[in-house]
């Protein structure tokens, strides 16, 4: 038996069949054994029936990115067989329902027309018929360990114990989790305690799942008495792990960071953040009251940002969370916030556009939108997070920057981070700082000089607790009183715009662009957001292939770390922008703000994440074939 550091798992099945729960159970289970976990969920904008899958990595060290082929793939239905049979290779396990042996691709009713056409084309190319039985035969001939299990037998086994058939059928997702566990060499029996934890208070559900685990293990044992690869012992020393989605970890960061007012309008993939937060709105531990957040569901995104701005004027630490279509509606108010020195954080989860685009898929195509959205010119800060740990800290930092400099802050994330589950160390909140900036609460009649020209950053007031204060979207004087005087206009304009220079001066460039790997080498990958995981793993693999590679991770796009980016690039013979968009917007920003020419690029805009294997291949292609651009396309 071979001990491995990482195991890659894929579970495919129809939306609504419990894969989400299976992902949660698996993530928590592996975390309870001390493993690092990263699990991506790919799904359609649909409640039931369309194809979805979980793609996860379990690591004895650190699960930072995903790749193909996987070690274990479990197909819950016919469609999954056809969609994922190429995601495994020699030595992988492929689990499918023996009962579907004689089904064909035509039986996958929810399969999209164009996907079906592509798969049929592929089958033809490989000389495989459209029967499931033939596909698995081909897999076997390719050296894949095919594990056929009759799912109806599992269901019947549970029915014998008195479980209603429909309930037993639903528990099949637990079979998927059990199979994934068993086939990476971990005893699934110990998963029972995780199941008890996840379904706490629902005794009958726990019972059903226990029965399913038992039935699954005995079925798997009879087919695979001994697994070929086994996950090695975890090397992390953590006593406990935080198992969270990106949405959840941002909610946590905001609460820790002192957020006390969050507004939102439901939109994928942002809504889970506010939803999770709502469940935690009363921060109370035993008898100790720590604070509370008002999570306010509005009638639209215009009201979401407008109410957040209003709450900020009253002195609350505020944010709103949305995605592209929602941010489109917020833009007019963003400009008002810029005009009035309002500290407001917009947590922005990018998804595939334009328009409704790919609402449940990821993208990085809104960078320029966030940089320049809004009529007129005003200072704003744009911060992007690359993984869950960053997202947590950045959520706090966004609130700090917003209040300290009295500017709108856009915290850029994407669907990949939003929905991905990771197991990460519990954050040490004592290491965080809370900065509220300058404000005055106390006596005095006012009007208050809210927009003072004497200070780089003026003093804020809290409506109702400070002297009378005026705000207006019209150009105004130091007291917030309307004035269109041309000379005053210049002074107020400069006052606002200078804030960007202050931020640029005060936030270190090394913090705004972080280098992974050595300061010099053959190639520098430059990216941002979720690209971080694949890129940091790719540079390691490239090193093993003899290419000295590093990764420059851009975290601030406004103000842009121009000097740092220019300096770092000098150390490399080649630099490549890696992004989830078409235009290479981070590259465009680098050109605009740092005068860097975009020469080579690796992009992906299918809405699926960049996988380490395809990124490595693409970099090799740049070297070997001399191409300037590689468009990535892997993933169902």
């Amino acid at each position, binding site marked *: 038996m071979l001990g491995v550091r990482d195991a890659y798992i894929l579970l495919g099945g129809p939306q609504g069949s419990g894969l989400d729960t299976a992902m949660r159970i698996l993530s928590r289970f592996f975390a309870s054994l001390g493993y690092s976990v990263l699990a991506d969920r790919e799904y359609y904008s649909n409640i039931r029936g369309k194809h979805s899958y979980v793609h996860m990595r379990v690591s004895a060290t650190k699960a930072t990115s995903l790749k193909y082929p996987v070690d274990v793939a479990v197909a819950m239905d016919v469609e999954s067989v056809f969609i994922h049979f190429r995601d495994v290779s020699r030595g992988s396990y492929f689990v499918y329902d023996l009962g579907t042996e004689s089904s064909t691709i035509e039986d996958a009713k929810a399969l999209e027309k164009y996907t079906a056409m592509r798969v049929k084309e592929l089958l033809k190319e490989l000389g495989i018929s459209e029967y499931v039985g033939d596909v698995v035969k081909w897999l076997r001939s390719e050296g894949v360990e095919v594990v056929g299990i009759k799912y109806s037998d599992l269901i019947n086994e549970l029915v014998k114990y008195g479980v209603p058939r429909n309930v037993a059928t639903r528990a099949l997702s637990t079979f998927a989790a059990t199979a994934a566990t068993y086939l990476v060499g971990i005893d699934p029996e110990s998963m029972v305690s995780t199941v008890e934890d996840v379904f706490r208070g629902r005794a009958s559900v726990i019972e059903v799942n226990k029965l399913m685990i038992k039935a699954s293990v005995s079925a798997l044992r009879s087919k695979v008495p001994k697994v070929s690869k086994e996950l090695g012992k975890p090397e992390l020393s953590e006593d406990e792990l935080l198992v969270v989605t990106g949405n959840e970890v941002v909610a946590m960061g905001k609460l820790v960071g002192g957020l006390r007012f969050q507004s939102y309008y439901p939109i994928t993939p942002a809504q889970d953040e506010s939803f999770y937060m709502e469940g935690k709105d009363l921060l109370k531990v035993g008898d100790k009251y720590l604070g509370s957040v008002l999570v306010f569901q509005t009638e*639209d995104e215009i009201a979401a940002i407008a109410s957040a701005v209003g709450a900020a004027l009253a002195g609350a630490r505020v944010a709103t969370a949305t995605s592209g279509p929602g941010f489109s509606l917020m833009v007019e108010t963003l400009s008002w916030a810029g005009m009035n020195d309002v500290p407001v954080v917009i947590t922005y989860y990018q998804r595939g556009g334009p328009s409704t685009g790919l609402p449940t898929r990821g993208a990085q195509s809104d960078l320029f939108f966030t940089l320049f959205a809004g009529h007129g010119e005003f200072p704003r800060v744009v911060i992007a997070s690359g993984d869950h740990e960053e997202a947590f800290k950045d959520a706090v930092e966004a609130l700090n920057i917003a209040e300290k400099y009295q500017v709108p802050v856009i915290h850029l994330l994407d669907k990949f981070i939003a929905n991905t589950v990771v197991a990460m160390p519990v954050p040490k909140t*004592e290491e965080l700082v809370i900065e509220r900036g300058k404000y005055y609460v106390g006596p005095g009649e006012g009007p208050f000089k809210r927009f003072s020209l004497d200070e780089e950053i003026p003093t804020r007031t809290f409506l109702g607790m400070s002297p009378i204060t005026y705000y207006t979207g*019209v150009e105004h004087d130091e007291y917030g009183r309307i004035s269109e005087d041309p000379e005053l206009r210049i002074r107020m304009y400069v006052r606002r715009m200078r804030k960007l220079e202050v931020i640029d001066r005060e936030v270190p460039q090394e913090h705004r662009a972080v280098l992974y790997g050595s300061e010099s080498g053959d190639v520098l990958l430059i990216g941002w957001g979720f690209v971080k995981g694949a890129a940091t793993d790719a540079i390691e693999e490239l090193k093993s292939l003899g290419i000295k590679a590093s990764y420059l991770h851009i975290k601030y796009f406004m103000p842009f770390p121009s000097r740092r980016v220019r300096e770092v690039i000098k150390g490399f013979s080649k630099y490549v922008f890696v992004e989830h968009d078409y235009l290479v917007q981070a590259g465009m920003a680098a050109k605009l703000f740092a005068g860097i020419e975009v020469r080579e690029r690796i992009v992906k805009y299918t809405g699926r994440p960049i996988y380490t294997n395809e990124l490595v291949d693409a970099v090799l292609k740049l070297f070997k074939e001399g191409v300037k651009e590689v468009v990535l396309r892997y993933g169902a």
Partner: protein
Amino acid sequence: MERERRYSMKDYRSEVWIEWCPGCGNYGILTAMLKAFEELQLDPKRVVVVAGIGCSGRIPNYYRVNGVHALHGRAIPFAVGIKLANPKLIVIVHGGDGDLLGIGMGHFVALGRRNIDVTVVIHDNGVYGLTKGQASPTLPRGVKTKALPRPNIQDAINPLAVALASGYTFVARAFALDVDYLKRIFVEAIRHRGASVIDVLQPCVTYNNVFTAEYYRKRIYRLEDEGWDPLVRDPSEARSKYINAMRKALESGDRIPVGIFYRNPYVPSYEERVAQMNPYYLKEPPSRQVVEVNGRPVITTDYFRRVFADRIVKVVGRGSK
């Protein structure tokens, strides 16, 4: 400690010169509100006036209370954020009928559903004045005010019916130039706990040559003069009073009723609904909370573990902290 003082109407008025046309209905609305503030002896620091865009949007400048000149159609959500962050404030929204019932209608309806304790004043003159006299949502179909190239092709909205249907618990209509009467309604609206709205009929002397001061003066009568009782005195009365108010709001003809149409103190405000779930809310609303101790989060690592216990997994066989 600020000393006890008595505020007079002019204490609420700023020094800024008023840029409305002579004879504008806005003067009546401003004066009535200043008088209402005086009568209620409101602390100017506790009052926030939020306005939209247009002629009425300039009104915060003329008050000596906190003023937020927001965006077209968005005065209500700005006001809502202010109020929810600090429920102790008295929050008043001024907006035109185009602002509140056209571009901002979604927010207008949503405020009613929530019954947040905000007072909305509709400056209802039937036209978009500052953009030179286009038809606004309250201008009836077929009417041709002087700037219109042809008669209005769209039907008018009934602001009171919309307010009632949306859940406002204080619904009134008044005339801008009957200042004392308007003041009395403002006083009652501000006292009301919950969402209140006053549809203030006002002339636009420059662009509305149909619905003039003269027009209104001839037709207006006061509801109470005909024995109207808008107040829900017991929850069991709510439905019948509501239906009566709706019927009255839909009345058309040559007589225009003004006064309080409906007033229901029994619907919990949004703030009360929040307080029911979070008993700390009214005492420590979002704007009054301490979120840091010496620049560090209130939520220590230990508290973090307990608050977010649902997402923390203990590693089997390792000691717990």
